[in-house]
């Protein structure tokens, strides 16, 4: 087998690379990379850079963030030359609700304990489904909360508050 000639290699960086399905993805991803890179450069602006001989804590952050920024710009430019503009369709409701469910768990577990946190998390999370079955939901939430409380709180006795403090 000729390793130089496989399909992977042919897809490598090149001006003649077949354009991606849409330039929008390149532009948006480039924007994201460039924004994160720029933000990191800003946050780390005072980190000591040092010298090659004696690198400071800011040496690698500056290089990596800079490279990410430049790469983002490159991607954006490539995207602008690509044909087609079809930004990805994103359905926000499940994304927001799942994030919210996780955050609720994180902010209630220490004070309200495993049982209540589980109830809330499953309750909110389950609403992220396409079709919500309101009759089913309370049972799913209660069942999971009871199961986890018994398994982790009592059977395994892990060090985690189980009931409100």
């Amino acid at each position, binding site marked *: 087998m000729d390793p130089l000639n496989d399909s*992977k290699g042919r897809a490598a960086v090149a001006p003649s690379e077949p354009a991606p399905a849409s330039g929008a993805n390149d532009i948006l991803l480039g924007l994201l990379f460039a924004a994160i890179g720029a933000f990191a450069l800003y946050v780390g602006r005072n980190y000591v850079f040092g010298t090659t001989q004696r690198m400071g804590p800011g040496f690698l952050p500056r290089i990596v963030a800079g490279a990410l920024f430049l790469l983002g710009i490159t991607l954006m430019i490539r995207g602008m030359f690509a044909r087609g503009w079809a930004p990805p369709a994103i359905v926000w409701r499940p994304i927001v609700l799942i994030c919210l469910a996780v955050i609720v768990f994180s902010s209630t577990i220490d004070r309200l304990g495993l049982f209540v946190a589980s109830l809330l998390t499953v309750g909110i999370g389950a609403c992220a489904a396409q079709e919500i079955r309101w009759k089913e939901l309370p049972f799913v939430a209660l069942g999971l909360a009871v199961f986890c409380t018994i398994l982790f709180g009592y059977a395994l006795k892990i060090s985690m508050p189980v009931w409100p403090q």
Partner: protein
Amino acid sequence: MSDIVQSLALGFSVAASLSNLWYCFLGALIGTLIGVLPGIGPIATMAMLLPLTYYLQPTEALIMLAGIYYGAQYGGSTTAVLMRLPGESSSVVTCLDGYAMARKGRAGTALATAALASFFAGTVVTLLIAIASPALTELAQKFGPAEYFSLMALGLVAAVVFAQGSPLRAVGAIFLGLLLGLIGADVNTGFDRFTFDRPELRDGIGVVVVSMGLFGIAEIMLNLSNGPEGQGERTKLSRLWLTKEDFRAAWPATLRGTGLGALLGILPGGGAMLGSFASYAVEKRISSTPERFGEGAIEGVAGPEAANNAGAQSSFIPMLALGIPGNSVMAMMAGAMLIHGIAPSPNLASTQPQLFWGLIVSMWFGNLMLLVINLPLIGVWVKLLAAPYRMLFPAILLFCCIGIYTVNNSAFEVGLVALFGLLGVVLAKLDCPLAPLVLAFILGPMMEENLRRAMLLSRGDPAIFLSRPISLGLLIACALVVALLLMPNFRRAREAATEA
């Protein structure tokens, strides 16, 4: 040689005692059952179950703990295949093709492949530990900061191989992973970088948090936004076993994975988690049909799973031969020994031969039990997928939260998972490959640490990387990979020029 036979015989007599067999089985079983809960990986499982072993005899305790570890590890691979939930960083790779196989209704085959490849690797490495521990330890000791740096550099370059589609995006993902890895206090100066004054961030973000968010939570969000039709396919079950062609494809990959995993696993300080990545990169690179990778190539499951288990097993070597725990799992094993008043030490084989050889032989028993426990269970796991997704995903979500919390008892880390879930969805929607990001996230901090350590040791002379043979060899390999990646373009450009 007869020494080894004698020692192994002693080990067999210890490990095959009824009580030790029982604890080995119990550990593997509980480890599997807890580890298979989606979102609860080996480290969380061990942290949860560690106290169970405090009341046992030292040998029983260690044997059970080893069983828990294997069980949890295998359980993590199971969720990686079924739900794209990596229990730990090394099953991130299994998510790629294992999950793709599951989506094509081949979850049973993927799980059986993982079990068989793991068992094979476990058997080989157990023998290796018995025969060659001292020699392997000596080899590992040759790895100083310079060698580690060069190895990490090679790993990063190879990460581009994981890319599906545009390498430019893969490179971006690598830099983003590196940047995320820099969060936390700088090892050399204690300086806080990108911690935003949160003390929880001083030790950096856990690999489990990143991979669970990017893969697990993000997958739930993607599935829900794709609607019910997105989930229908997985429930179509064809078969649970491997076909002849499957065997033919998986067998050599398993062999290579075992070798790679065993070698990387003996390096203390994170070698074990690189094995599965390395194996995947090799399989994809040498395959005549690399385009199948990411679409459910069985080599992409067999190789990394073998490497994963081989690495897990050979990471016991520095611990057994030197008494130095190489990673957090081994640190827990060492802690369990201390509780029983046994200090992990290089003399363990001579001062506690029963425990030492009993533990080694139990490793093999543990692997055997995994096979015995898991092959029949595959049918059960796969059937679980037939449960309606609207019931399944809230459970996955909750277990993820609990699993992350258990690792460090940190509510903050659970919150971070939400953030990484969000990042994972956005990146997936924008066709950005995630595996290179995770790999760079793991490699980055180690690479920086060792780069700066090597430069400190050489008092600022970069020649240290070229004057040490292993380091030089790794850097040459690095250059070769870069050349391989770039060459086709040169060639094509040249062809284009001559044609014009």
